[in-house]
């Protein structure tokens, strides 16, 4: 039994190591400072992914600005106030929403926002990503808040704290690191999304000037380069993949570091 489980663990970790090292091997060649700050150029002239890095960052910020507050509030509602049929219905809908393929979210935002505005934009891309984040953040928030012992709530209530202060001042801080982990999962999930951005944020060959116009992103850039017929662009796609992985990893580490709970 130990051998079998150890073997499976080894396989799981091994696959991850193989993927990471393969990406690193293929991408490291094109990686240099210029590649990280330059905009894309025609084949044979080098160029880089600076605009895509900035674009991805802005898209993530937009999606967090919308997705995290909404998801957090929804999770708080479900765990602290949601006992009835309405909450059960919401819970079911959220679970369904989690399972919607991201391309569907993209098409939806395209139909509802992009067609109305008559142009692609960073806003629509951010909203598409936020729609993917909300159910993840909501459910992890709910689960993490439910793990907070009931005795803590009673302790605060017994001191004369009204319900909302108990939730904000005692329950949320006690669940903070778990909620942050959920938010991280959501960020990690959407930072790898390509499909919802294809016809919302669309992509761009320039640094973003405002959020109301098409914007580049790492994933769409990787997609465009990977399906191109040029070897140089293929190498650049691998390098961009490596950068994307590094960004996700550093977001993870940064949030872990920031939210470590000194009191648990």
């Amino acid at each position, binding site marked *: 039994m130990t051998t079998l489980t150890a073997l499976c663990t080894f396989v799981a970790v091994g696959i991850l190591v193989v993927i990471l090292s393969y990406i690193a091997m293929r991408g490291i060649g094109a990686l240099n400072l210029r590649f990280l700050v330059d905009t894309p150029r025609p084949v044979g002239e080098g160029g880089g992914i600076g605009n895509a890095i900035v674009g991805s960052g802005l898209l993530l910020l937009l999606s967090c600005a919308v997705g995290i507050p909404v998801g957090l509030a929804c999770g708080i509602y479900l765990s602290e106030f949601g006992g009835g049929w309405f909450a059960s219905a919401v819970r079911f809908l959220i679970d369904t929403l989690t399972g919607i393929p991201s391309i569907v979210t993209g098409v939806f935002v395209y139909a509802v926002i992009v067609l109305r505005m008559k142009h692609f934009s960073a806003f629509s891309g951010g909203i598409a990503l936020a729609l993917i984040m909300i159910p993840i953040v909501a459910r992890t928030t709910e689960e993490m808040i439910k793990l907070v012992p009931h*005795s803590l709530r*009673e302790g605060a*209530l*017994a*001191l*004369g*704290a009204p319900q909302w202060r108990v939730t904000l001042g*005692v329950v949320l*801080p006690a669940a903070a690191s778990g909620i942050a982990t959920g938010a991280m999962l959501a960020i990690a999930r959407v930072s790898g999304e390509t499909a919802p951005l294809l016809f919302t944020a669309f992509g761009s060959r320039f640094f973003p000037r405002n959020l109301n116009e098409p914007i580049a992103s790492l994933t769409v850039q990787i997609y465009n380069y990977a399906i191109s017929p040029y070897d140089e662009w293929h190498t650049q796609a691998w390098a961009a993949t490596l950068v994307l992985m590094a960004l996700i990893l550093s977001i993870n580490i940064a949030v872990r570091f920031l939210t470590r709970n000194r009191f*648990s």
Partner: protein
Amino acid sequence: MPISTSFAAPKFEVKSRTSLVSTATKVAVENLNFFYGRTQALNGITVEIPEHMVVAFIGPSGCGKTTFLRTLNRMNDVIPGTRVEGTVTIDGQNIYTPGADVVDLRRKVGMVFQKSNPFPKSIFDNVAYGLKINRMTSSRSELEGRVEEALKDAALWSEVKERLKSSALGLSGGQQQRLCIARALAVRPEVILMDEPASALDPIATSKIEELIFDLKKQYTIVIVTHNMQQAARVSDLTAFFLLGKLVEVNTTEKLFTAPDEKLTEDYVTGRFG
């Protein structure tokens, strides 16, 4: 012994409660019934709790003593599907009248729980919590003073004064429970409810809590639930015996343990059942 038969026709009457002691009544409970859904957990409880006394509730598990304790600061309100009948009067005010302020009530009637439940915050912030949410201090120095005072009253100050900023969860079990007492004392309640405050503690920590209870009764009225009869005998002035949701007898502690009025009480305190 056929307890249930003797219980089928309950005829206990708590005799001459007011004559037990001479101090003024702090809490008066009149004909209190309590229901969890359709299950009746308390049945016609009538008792008076005098000021600056320690009153112990004893009885076997499930007899309703904790439920009763929690009706005194309306902590049962947070449990869905519960219902209260009868009156609980504190300083002449019925706490169950519609529109009664629960926040005010809980500030006046503090509570210490069976399992210590410090917040995952610093030691200082734990004690300061009630003061902050009730805006009871106007300056940082006043807040610090009140925290220090509460920690001293709970006999914890000398052990934690060097590390007020560190996590409350790093304290030992006994210290955590005294921290919870300090947290309750900080808002200067008038009544303190203690739900088996020492049941999870070792004998040394328990004796510290018991000494503390003895000191605290000068300033506070204390109601303590315990299923440890020795503890009730050591710390309390009055003892009330609960059985199957009814109050069988309330008497001075000395009398209840040596010459109780009720046969059921005698059977319980002499260890014939429970």
